[in-house]
Each structure stands twice: as C-alpha cells, then as structure tokens.
C-alpha cells in the first residue's frame, strides 16, 4: 500500500522538482586557447579613446557552421605609439571548444586604434565580411571565401575618417542590399585633450565627453557593386550631430522600414524614424527616449531593441553611466515610449553599462537581458563613493511584462568584476543556447558558455535570403508550440561595438513539438515551415523554406 502511494506521488514530486538554473560558465583561456588581451593604451595623459574600447564579434567567416570570434584592439594613432605591435584577432572555431588564432593568415589585424566591429555579408556572395571601426578611419575587410580577407575600404568608400564607434548593417530602403550606419563619437585629436584634473588627487582623469564637440554619424547606401554612397546628409542623419555609441536597427512603428535607435553620451539619444524614400526624421524628444527625467541628457552607451512583453511592438533599452539609471523604454505605439525599467533601475543605479543584449537565455521563448558594465574612469573610486571602476555582469530574466535580476543564481562569474565594454552573442558550441563573449577594456576577454539553456526545446534558424538583404534584417519570425506563440523581429546591431551570431534560436520551453513557424521576409515573401525538427539548426531559404 505504502509503495503504491509512493508510486502515485512520484510523478507529482517530479513535477514540483525545481530545475537547476541556467548558468554561464567562464571558459578559461587555457581551455579555449584564446590568449589575446585587449591593450587599452592607458596613458598618464588620459586620452579619451583609451577608455571606450573595444568590441568583439561572433561570426562564421569560413561557413563551416561554427561561430568564430573576432576581437578589436587599440593600435597606432596620433596620441599612441605601441611599444609592441598590437593587432585585432580572428580566432577560428575548432569545433571542440578551442580556437586557433588565424589573424595573420586571414589578413584582418587592423593596425589602427580600433573600436568596434560589424560582421555581415555586404556583397551577398555568401561570405561574412568585416567592418572595423576605429579612432582614425575605418576598415572594410571583404571576405575572399578562402579564409582570407582583402581591405576594400577605399574602393568601397566607407573609411569615415574621425572617431567611429558602433556600426550596423541593415537595409534601410528595402532594396535587398545591406547599407551601413556608422556612429560617430566626438571631434577629437591629440591636441583636443583638455586638462581634466582633480585638485584633491593632483592627478589627471578622463575628461567627460561633454567637453567635446559632437559629430554627425554616417549612413552609407550600398550600391550593390561593391561601393557605397555616403547619404548621411540627404537621409537626414547628418542633421543631428551627436556623440554616438550604441546603435540598433529596428522597426518601432511596424511599417516594414527599419528605424535606428542611437545612444548618445551626454547628449539626447536619437530615434531616427525611417520615413521611406531614403529619409529619416529624428523623433527622440517626442518619442520620450532622448532625455532622462527633467530633460537632462544622459550618458547613453549600449542599446538594444526587442519586443520584451510580446505585444507586437519593439521596445528599446539604453544603458547609461552610474547614478543615471538604465532605461527600458516600453513602446506605447503611436511612436511614444515610457521608461519602465522595474527591477533593472535599482540594480544599475551605481553601474555604467556598455555591451547588452536581449536574448532568450533559457529558451522559454521570451527575450531575457544580459548587461556588461564597467566605469570608464579608472579613478572613479577615489572620487565617488560606492562606484567601482570594474563592475559586475548582470542577468535579468523576463517574467512576462518585466525583468527579474537572476545574476546571483546565474554563475560564479556574476560575482566577479570587469572593465566590461563590448558584448557579442552567439552559440559557439552549437548546443542550442546562446553563449556570451565580452571584450574588456585593458583586460582579457571573457567567453561564457551557457549551461542549461538548452534544457528547454528549441530550433535554430539560419535565414538564407534570396530576395531580401543577405542578413535578413527586418525578417519577422512567428512560431507556435502548443499555447506558446511568439514573434521576433530580426534586428541588427545592438549591444556596444559588437556583432552577433546571425542565427535565430527559437525557444519553445518544455513543449515537445513546434506547430508552426512563419517567416515574413523583408521582401514581403512569407515562408511557412511545417513539422520543423526539434533541437537542431536548420537552413531556411527565402521562398523555398527548409533546406
């Protein structure tokens, strides 16, 4: 009798058994064989570019189906002569958790004072190319398809001299070619570094960007012949000079045209609304995303966009500097947003945020949020109580209409401190959950393996466009599994100075079958997938469906 009762109770016990939380496990350099370290060129002169870099990327440069890694480093500039050669790094994924440095063979070492990277197949030849932003001028590396790249910057016309930060590939005019938005930071050169000192400390510190002149960002139209036309002025982008960092291409009004949300440091953020016909209108003020309370501009750095509450409208996120709070802008439709950060605000009051990304870390179908932090001023601890130079990572889980701080249960790495900057998202071990790569200022990078995200069921989509832009930016994916129905817009950019795995992992929680997947491509084509397989990556060809 007793055994019968036990047997009856057993399934119940299993039901209530709590699953172990999803965690992120640090992959040590000894394991990954990633020995590259960022050199921030830190100097007694406290030149501003030293403190804002750098970015990183997950990309599959050799089309072997595994995410490789690219890091951006500092390099020679008008204020910095490296004592030893510095270079960006491309690491080939060996499919076994290790990576091999192939930078020199690939010819992508950079050699400038690097900032960020944006990876995409701009010429539609099936190979992922690299655009590297710098303090100085930028580099476009065209992928030759044989493991090597060629610097085609001059031919393409995208050098964008000055100080560029984030770059975003997207198709603003829906002509099926990837255009390029490049954020510009302040006007700066060696002679433009004012003396910012703390009289009590008798030491120089990094000047706040408020002291420097803003610069217009750039928009390059892809002509489709390997060259680009600078359309910054005619598009309206250049009409709003800023001190721009993070940028994300998204569609805030569901009109099928990709808009741009751009974070500015010590200036109002920009929301460039795509009006069609190649024109953008900056509507940050009326949308309520430009300023903090009291109309005070904040120090916007990292950004991202996602429909976090599943209402069908893209919400926005921007990370600011300490005491300014980070903002989660809920889309109220009609081009109006309200800041509803919930638990994120108190958790970030003392932090300065850079890399960040909405993604479904536990494959339950909704976007969660990962934040990478670090204060730009290395002397902040002697100047402001409780604010640290190195700061912790944060993980927030989506609870439906808000976010819950789950950092404490998400792994030991969340109790460590970093000078975090760039952050890229990608499934480097192809196990069906997104891993995280961060690039830290003056420190080794951090590769974090997602442990347990794939306990829920999933499908990974590699979208192969035939009529739309090669990255399928702007595609809308809708999937249903039982009562779970989700929609995701394929955005571009987001985070800070970094570039992400282009594949889309669709989580379905504990459901064991995906009822349907629909992909509405930017071209307008609709693909419906029936009986898609579970827990594996598949290629979806525009107009043909599953390959």
């Amino acid at each position, binding site marked *: 009798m007793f055994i019968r009762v036990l047997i009856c109770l057993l399934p119940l016990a299993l039901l209530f058994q709590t699953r172990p939380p999803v965690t992120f496990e640090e992959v040590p350099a000894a394991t990954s064989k990633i020995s590259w370290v960022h050199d921030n060129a830190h100097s007694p002169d406290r030149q501003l570019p030293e403190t804002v870099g750098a970015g990183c990327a997950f990309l599959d440069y050799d089309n072997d189906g595994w995410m490789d890694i690219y890091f951006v480093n500092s390099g020679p500039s008008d204020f910095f002569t490296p004592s030893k050669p510095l270079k960006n790094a491309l690491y080939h994924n060996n499919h076994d958790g290790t990576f091999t440095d192939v930078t020199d063979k690939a010819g992508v070492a950079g050699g400038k004072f690097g900032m960020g990277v944006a990876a995409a197949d701009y010429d539609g030849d099936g190979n992922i190319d690299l655009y590297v932003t710098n303090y100085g001028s930028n580099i476009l590396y065209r992928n030759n398809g044989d493991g090597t790249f060629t610097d085609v910057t001059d031919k393409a016309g995208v050098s964008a001299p000055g100080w560029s930060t984030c770059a975003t590939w997207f198709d603003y005019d829906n002509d099926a070619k990837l255009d390029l938005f490049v954020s510009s930071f302040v006007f700066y050169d060696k002679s433009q570094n004012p003396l910012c000192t703390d009289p009590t400390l008798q030491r120089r510190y990094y000047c706040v960007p408020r002291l420097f002149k803003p610069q217009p960002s750039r928009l390059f139209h892809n002509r489709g012949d390997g060259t680009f036309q600078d359309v910054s002025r005619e598009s309206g982008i250049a009409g709003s000079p800023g001190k721009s960092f993070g940028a994300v291409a998204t569609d805030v009004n569901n009109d099928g045209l990709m808009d741009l949300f751009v974070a500015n440091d010590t200036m109002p953020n920009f929301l460039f609304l795509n009006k069609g016909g190649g024109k953008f209108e900056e509507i940050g*003020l*009326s949308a*309520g995303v430009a*300023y903090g*309370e*009291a*109309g*005070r501009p904040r120090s916007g750095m990292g950004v991202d966009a996602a429909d976090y509450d599943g209402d069908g409208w893209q919400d926005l996120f921007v990370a600011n500097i300490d*005491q*300014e*709070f980070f903002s989660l802008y809920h889309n109220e439709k009609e081009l*109006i947003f*309200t800041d*509803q*950060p919930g638990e994120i*605000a*108190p958790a970030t*009051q003392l932090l300065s945020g850079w890399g960040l990304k909405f993604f479904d870390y536990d494959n339950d179908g909704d976007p969660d949020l990962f934040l990478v932090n670090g204060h730009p001023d290395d002397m902040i601890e002697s100047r402001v*109580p*409780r604010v640290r130079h190195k700061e912790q990572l944060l993980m927030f889980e989506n609870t439906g209409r808000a976010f819950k701080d789950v950092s404490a249960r998400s792994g030991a790495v969340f109790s460590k401190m970093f000078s975090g900057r760039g952050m890229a998202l990608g499934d480097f071990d192809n196990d069906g959950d997104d891993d995280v790569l961060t690039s830290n200022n003056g420190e080794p990078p951090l590769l974090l393996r997602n442990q347990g995200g794939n306990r829920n069921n999933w499908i990974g989509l590699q979208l192969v466009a035939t009529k739309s832009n090669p990255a399928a930016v702007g595609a809308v994916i809708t999937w249903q599994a039982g009562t779970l129905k989700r929609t995701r817009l394929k955005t571009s950019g987001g985070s800070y100075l970094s570039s992400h795995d282009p594949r889309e992992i669709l989580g379905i929680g504990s459901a064991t079958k995906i009822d349907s997947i629909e992909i509405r491509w930017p071209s307008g084509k609709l693909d419906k997938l029936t009986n898609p397989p579970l827990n594996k990556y598949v290629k979806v060809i525009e107009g043909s469906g599953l390959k």
Partner: protein
Amino acid sequence: MKRNTASSHKKAQKAQDVVLCFMCILCLFVANVRAQRTDVVKIFEQVATLIRDNRLAEAEKELTAVLRVEPDLPVALNFLGTVRAKQSRLVEAESLFLRAARNDKSFTGPRMNLAYLYVLKGTPDKAIPQLQEVLALEPENAEALVMLGDIYLAKNDLQKAEENYLPALNRSLDNAGALFGLAQISRLKGETREAAIYLNRVATLSTDSKSPEFLYKFGLEAMRVNMFDEAKSALERALELKPKEPSYLLGLGIAVLRKGDLFEAEKLFRRLLAMQPNNPQAQLHLGYVLLNQKKYAEARLWLEKSARPGVAIPEVFYYLGLVAQEQNDDARAIVLFEKAVQKLPDYAHARIALGTSYMRLKNYARARQELETAVKLDPEEPTGHYNLALLYARIKEPERAQQEMQIIEKLKAKGAGNGSGVVVLPPKPNP
C-alpha cells in the same frame, strides 16, 4: 498616550539641559564664596561637588545645616534652588532663587538661574528682566547677552537679538553662541552667504564640542543654508555623544540625503525605524530615499505608513503619486497628485507630475493646463519645461517644444535644478 510619553521625555530632557546650566553657574558661586568665611567656603565647595555628582541628598543636608545658622545666606539659597531644580521641583527652586536674588542684589547667579528656569518653563518673557538685571550689573556678561539674544530670536525680534549677540561677540570673537545666533538672523533675513560665514566659524569653534544639543542645533541650521558637509559632521559627532537619540539619527539621515548619498541615508533611516518603528518622519524619508532608488514597491509601503489619516503632508501624496506613475498606474497617480495640489495649490512639482500623467493617458488638454501652470509657478524647474516640451512635440507644436528645450539649456547654464541625480524634491529639511 505615546504623545504624552514623548512630551514628558522632552521635558525631562530639557530639565537635564537646564541643570547642566545650573552646574555651570556653580562656578560663579564658588567665586563668591571666597568672600565668606573659610569654613563656609569649604562647605560650599563640597556642596558644589556633590551637586555636580548628583549626590543631592548629601548636598541638601550640608545646605540645611548652613541655612539653619544663616537662613538668608544668598549662596546657600541659590545652591538649594539648584538642588530643587535638579529634583524637578521647579516652584520651590524659583522661590529659593528669588530669595537669594532679593537678599543680595549684586549676586548675578540666582538671576541667571531664574532666567534658565523661566526658559525651561516656557515663559521666556519672565527671563528677560532677570537677564537685564544681570547685564545692568555686568554689562559684558556674554552668557546673559547670548541668552537674551536667543530669547529675542525665538520671539522673531531679529533687531533686539542682534543687539545682544553683537556685544557678546565684541567681547570674544570666539563666542560660538553669539555666532550661531547671528547666523540664524542672517538666514532669516535671506542673507545666506553671511549665514554660511558665521556658521563656518561656529563649525571651527565647535570641533571639540561635547554638547550634543548644540551640535544638533548647529547641524540643523547648517542644513538650512545648504552646508551639508558641516551639518553631517556635526550631527555625526552629536550621535557619537548620544548614540540613541532618534532626532540626531533623523537629522543625520537628512543631511546625508541632502548630500545625495541615498545608500547611507537609507541605512540611517532604517536604523531609526528599528528604534522607533512608527516614527512618521523616518518612514517618510525612507520612502523618499527608496523612491529615488526606484525601489517603488517598498517606497510605497513606507510612504503609506507615514501618511497618518488627516495629517499627511502634500509631499506624501506627491511621492505616492510618483510611485503609482512609475508602476504604470496613471489613473491612481492623478488622484494622488490632485490631493497634493488640493493641499498646496502652488506645488509646482505635483502639477508637473499631474500634467505628465495626463500626457501619458493622452489627455493632452489637461496635461497642457497643468504643465503650463507649473512652469509659471516655478519657471526655474527644468522638469516642467521638459515635460511641456515633450507635450508640445507630441501635439505637433515643434517650435514651442524647441523653445522649452532652449529654456532648459539656459537653466542648465545657470545651474538651476538639482544636479545630484535626485530628481524628486526631498521633504522639507526640518526634521
């Protein structure tokens, strides 16, 4: 009942303070005693020690013995008055001091004691003639001058107060009491800079002060002229001297809050609430701190606790409205802001928040009405102009929006608005 307990505690506290003053005056007696017989002098020295050590029964025994021989001896009467004051037998104390003063018209000690006694009893007008008598005998008696200045200051007679503080200061430039009084006069006259100068001198002089009461008073005054560092330091020292005094904790919490350190302020208010869970000021301030840390759920809890029925100040409704606004409940926020505005029609911040909630609910006409009123009430407050700009931008009046943003730029250049990152105005600084 609790109020009674608090008030008797306050009275006992005041009595203790006065007794301290009496103890100081003992020194005067000792000087007078030198003129008396040597054996009596010895007795009085002993009595002074006994009183100081709170051995009142023994002191009284000695004094009774002396008074049996010389019933009208002024010094003995004055001592016995002091004993009675320490025993809180104020009527008898007054009678003894009066007898002592009558018997020796040149003896200032009992008159000073009477002055302290009258202040303690809440009849400062009766203290004035006593102090004037003292000053007639000793025109440079700084203690009497400062005390008289304090009484006139409390009566808001700034001119007479100043007339007494200044000669005290002329006698000694280091007279902290006189400087403190002059600082308050300057502040009341709106001369904040002068007040700060006086208070800076007081701060230097009171570095080693052992009087927590004075440090507390100084701390509050320093806050009134935005000298938050000095206020914090004085209140910290007051708290070191009297670690369990709730008013000091509250004062320090407010000073820390005004310095913009929300985390430390939160700790102090929580400490105070551990001592006095129903302290409405502590609840209000903790709620305010949590509101600024965007911890809305807990902020609401404390703010609602602080709002005693019928006595809630407009700020409480305003703060609770902000919490509701942040929790996306604009309908409730509007009710709360309306209550704040009803209580205080000139409350610009509440009107700004009210306008903002109407804007969020897309009632642009009401939003405009409230926001335009708010910027008229407080043209220096950037939040009003910003929300008005937002509204104009939304109702497609971009030029007006730009004008409002330009006003914000000008205000920023002037340094208007608070720069601490704390957007919401704190409760009134007086604990």
